[in-house]
């Protein structure tokens, strides 16, 4: 049987690969970007992300399941596209490295100040190597297990309900010293990861595109629940002053035999972080393979992982990493929008040319 990605697997994969490292600062980000009751801004971003996904779905439908490389390279030679490919590869490897470094620095800052960063980098890269070695089917299968290992954590937030108070929401909507555009980009980066699905076309079962929407909806639900809880847990000013409000919220959770579960939950978040990193590496590997298919995929994988490790070693402080991640996120968002639009334009011209040819015949 030729292995294919099933719709449920795709939904879970999309949910798992979306960049959840931003989740821990999401209540603050929405407060900074949209002001009071800023959690409502998530809905606006969700709609934008759905439009972005729709573009991918349209490409799949118009391209009749052909891979984007096939579509692009029927009109534009590979060497012309090379700089674009290299830019995408660089951005995706950079994104993966920075997500990894950010996660490591946060975990080091909060829980393991004495453990060297390189050890964490090696461990995470090793897991990425194992996943990449197995290909997308292995990644998708592992994502289901990772999903089961992480989804239970959402129920821990029930313990915060006694602390929740609607009066903290205030009666004002979207008021405050806000930075709508830049803030929106930051919030949008929390949804990134889904754009890699543009490379899934020839590996999926039919009618898979709705799975991307479902995956994104699952992610949005988690974001909404946690951000909403954050607005009822902290006052607006507290939210603005706490870098990682979700970690602070978790510190208050106490169950009969466990307290201060934030480090446990943050550790479990590694599964989602690993999948985000892996999927960006995998995307980069696919483009590398398209550039030079003669080199074995495993060599590409090793090159990409090595480059990833080196990039992640460059920024040293959390502040630097955030700055790098911000910039790379801009590029990644640009790719998420422009790549599908570009492919759509090519498809449109191809259709026009095909129609012209059939008329001439």
């Amino acid at each position, binding site marked *: *049987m030729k292995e294919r990605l*099933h719709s*449920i*697997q795709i939904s*879970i994969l999309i949910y798992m690969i979306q960049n959840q490292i931003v989740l821990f600062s999401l209540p603050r980000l929405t407060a900074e970007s949209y002001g009071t009751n800023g959690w409502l801004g998530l809905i606006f971003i969700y709609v934008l992300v759905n439009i972005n996904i729709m573009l991918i779905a349209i490409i799949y439908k118009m391209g009749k399941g052909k891979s984007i490389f096939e579509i692009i390279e029927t009109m534009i030679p590979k060497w012309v596209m090379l700089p674009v490919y290299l830019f995408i590869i660089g951005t995706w490897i950079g994104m993966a490295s920075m997500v990894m470094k950010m996660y490591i620095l946060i*975990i080091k800052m909060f*829980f*393991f100040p004495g*453990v060297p960063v390189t050890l*964490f980098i090696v*461990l995470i890269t090793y*897991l990425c190597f*194992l*996943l990449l070695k*197995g290909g997308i089917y*292995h990644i*998708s*299968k*592992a*994502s*289901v*297990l*990772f999903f*089961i*290992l992480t989804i239970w954590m959402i129920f821990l937030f029930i313990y915060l309900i006694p602390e929740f108070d609607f009066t903290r929401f205030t009666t004002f909507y979207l008021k405050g010293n806000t930075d709508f555009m830049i803030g929106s980009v930051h919030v949008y980066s929390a949804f990134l990861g889904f754009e890699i699905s543009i490379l899934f076309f020839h590996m999926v079962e039919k009618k898979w595109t709705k799975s991307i929407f479902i995956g994104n909806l699952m992610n949005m639900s988690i974001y909404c629940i946690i951000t909403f809880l954050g607005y009822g847990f902290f006052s607006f000013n507290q939210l603005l002053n706490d870098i990682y409000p979700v970690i602070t919220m978790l510190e208050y959770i*106490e169950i*009969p*035999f*466990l*307290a*201060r*579960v934030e*480090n*446990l939950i943050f*550790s*479990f978040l*590694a*599964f989602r972080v*690993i999948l985000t990193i892996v999927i960006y590496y995998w995307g980069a590997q696919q483009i590398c393979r398209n550039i030079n298919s003669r080199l074995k995929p495993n060599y590409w994988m090793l090159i990409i992982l090595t480059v990833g490790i080196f990039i992640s070693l460059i920024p040293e402080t959390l502040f630097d990493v955030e700055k790098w991640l911000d910039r790379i996120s801009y590029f990644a968002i640009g790719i998420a929008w422009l790549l599908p639009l570009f492919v759509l334009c090519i498809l449109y011209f191809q259709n026009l040319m095909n129609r012209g040819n059939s008329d001439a015949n």
Partner: protein
Amino acid sequence: MGLFRTIVKKMFLSNDTEDVNQHSALKLQSYEKASYQKTLAEIEDSFDLVQRSFFQEHIHIIYFDSLVDSQKLEWEILAPLRKTSVNNLEEFFQQSLCKPVYSQQEIINGLLDGYVAMFVGQDAYLINVSGLEERSITESATETVINGPHDSFNEAIKTNVSLIRRRVRSSRLRMVKLSVGEISKTKVLLIYIEGIADPHSVNDLKKRIQAIKIDSITDSNVLIQILDDHPNSPFPQFYTTERPDVAVAKLYDGKIIGLVDDSPNIFCTPSSFFDFFKSPDDYNQRWILGTGLRILRYIALILTLVFTAFYVSITTYHYEMVPQSLLQSIMQSRSKVPFPPLIEAIFLELVIELLREAGARLPTKIGQTIGIVGGIVIGQAAVEAGITSNILIIVVAVSAIASFVVPNYIMSSSIRMVRFLFIIMAGFLGNIGIVFTLGLLSIHLSGLTNLNSPYLMPISPTFFKDWLDSIVRGPFYKIKKQPVLSKKLQNEGEREN
């Protein structure tokens, strides 16, 4: 003689399947002709070898005394031979169960299977009078159930087949006979139900078994390790059982079962990780209880893997995670212990493993004594001597008990072994170490396959309908008769054919 040969050939050919036809055809193409002298030369130094001649050395018979049933031998061969004359041999052949054999190799194989080799001039025949001693059908010692059938397989393949046949009264039950081992020539029988099992999988398994180049196999557990897709994994990939009711249930699920001669364990494929957490008892009681038991086993799995590791992690790095009410007793318990939690835990886990291994190897009565000595004397003494803490003893005991809840012994042993990695990683990196190992384990498990079928079916890839008879034990009116993947594979196979 010619008439006799035709009759016997017809009897022989009509009895068997396509495989045998092909097999015989191949043999006829290139064989070393069977002869009395060659046979004697090949097996001359055997103490149980018997050779007899009749009618002034016109007929010779050879057999192994230890492999034949002496009564059958008397009734089927010796007595009729005494009564007949050399001119009247055809009558004897018509009455007896003999089949003509052409190749020397076939004669040797037959003799080793308990047949009598008969040489009449240039012709050779095999007569089945085998009478191997076998253990009676008893209750399984490793897979006990409270409700349900209590019979189990034994070492005789024929008896095992009869236990399956009496449960599957269908003409669609197919059997493929194979042989493994250049020297041992161990019989392997693949059984499946036509129309339910995936034909691709049957062919694949057949090819794999035929491709095995090995001198001997001693048990089905050896064979499955050779057949494994991932031989370096600590996890068993083929499900094995001693219980005919389980074997038959697997057949109805569209799986293939394999019987190995001289082994009471049958293997079953394609198997999934969750098969190892099922017990026949789940089906013999109310579905709610069955489901509860299954969930209990998954909780046991988690406890076995991470409970001790979590203790090590918390007492080494994350004391803040202990609620105040519990902190005092943990601190008090650990205050006398001079070792770090990692050493303490590994020491105690090793002691438990030693006790388990000693208990398993010793006779039952002494094994019980070992349990008492280990559990009570060593445990209490270790705490009083300040080598371990009370809390750790509880943690390790819970973890050990949980490991025995897993119904399959091989899976339970694998999980216990993997647990050590969790403990070591927890000792070095705390919670993140546990999570890293959990990640490693998940990646490993999700990459495993059994006969090219994903090991984590039906969780990953996800087939929700199959969860009712894997993750939980749903009510019978809801359980589908055939798993989704098996049906899918079968449909694909039919389409391709």
